[in-house]
């Protein structure tokens, strides 16, 4: 029996959304945001080939590490900050309990 973790997502209007997310469904953060209709486009479907799911990690301990594809994409994206990550490259795992993220501004 796996447990849900609690995460908080701040949308582009500044509204906070708290979700209990299961860890055993092979979800990533982009999919969670899309699932809750949080204006995350996820255009490329999760291949780290667009930056439409960029988020800022507000809880430092959950930053993890950018992978190579993700880093390369962020090198070309806009509004990139030190704490930027692509939601699609963040699998939902138990150690992310308490994660707090803000969705980056939309490009264009």
């Amino acid at each position, binding site marked *: 029996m796996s447990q849900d973790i609690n995460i908080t997502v701040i949308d582009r209007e500044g509204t906070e959304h708290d979700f209990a997310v299961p860890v055993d469904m092979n979800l990533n953060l982009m999919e969670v945001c899309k699932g809750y*209709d949080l204006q995350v486009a996820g255009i*490329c479907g999760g291949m780290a*080939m*667009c930056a439409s799911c960029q988020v800022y990690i507000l809880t430092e301990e959950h930053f993890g590490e950018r992978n*190579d594809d993700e880093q*390369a994409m962020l*090198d*070309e994206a806009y509004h990139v900050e030190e704490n930027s990550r692509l939601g699609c490259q963040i699998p939902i795992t138990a150690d992310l309990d308490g994660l707090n993220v803000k969705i980056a501004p939309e*490009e*264009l």
Partner: protein
Amino acid sequence: MIKTDIIIIGAGPVGLFTVFEAGLMKLRCHLIDVIPQPGGQLCEIYPKKPIYDIPGYPSVLAGELVDKLMEQAAPFKPGFTLGERADIIEKQTDGSFIVTTSKGTQHQALVVMIAGGLGSFEPRKPLISNIGDFEEKGVRYIVKDPDQFEGKDMVISGGGDSALDWAIYFAEKGSFVHLVHRSDRFRAHKDSVSRAQELASAGKMKLHTFAEVKELNGDQELRSVVIHTKLSKNTVYTDLWFPLFGLSPKIGPIGDWGLEIEKNAIVVDTYDYQTNRPGIFAIGDVNTYAGKLKLILCGFHEATLAVQTAYKIINPEKKFTLKYTTVQGVQGF
């Protein structure tokens, strides 16, 4: 005025396969796409990524799948209006539709199939305040009709496949290319990166890494760009800059066509994927219905069913009987 049986908006995989299915029923198609080449997001976003869920292909690169679909559609001689966005649709008294593009090209048909995927791809524009002054006057977000730029010196920005592929293309055609990228890691395929490095060593290209074009200068036309790095600013005199940072889809003008839209997708009837406006269908990623899955293979199925009703609209007096290609073969136009 281009006249055809079916106007297909979007030349991605589903639009291309529609040509084949319509062709089997002796219906002619004309495709309109804002991107200058066919393939949609497969060519624009992930041409070198493998796809594993196309029946019969354990693995196929997205770009190769598009080549195969083009080959499959070829006997039915589809027409193409590329690099133009379908902007306006007008219903005529005879029941046909006229679709007019951003460049004013007009198309007429009894049936319109919207296979627009994620929407109309608009370029991701660099955040430079006066960039608008030089659009089409030296700054180009999309490479269209590359012949006209062959041999000209230019600046290309970006680190993805599009930027690298075009930089290599033009360098091999005798242009001197400045390739500017914000990092030293490239998102493009590694073969393209090695080729670019070879061309740079051969003096046909200059790679500017950890660099970014931040200023544009000119009068009526672009005259120079300023490339910033952490420590320096370098002016490159050029009248051609391609910022190739990819394209981002917007639903665009189709959103104003009086179609029922739900969550940025067009609502259809799953009987034949027709929209709330008879004669206008929506197939592939652009549509939505209960149980919708955004998969290429589902789009193929939708296209096949949609052309059955299209046939009845175009040939109200005739009855069509399904014939298998194994029996009939493929009789092109």
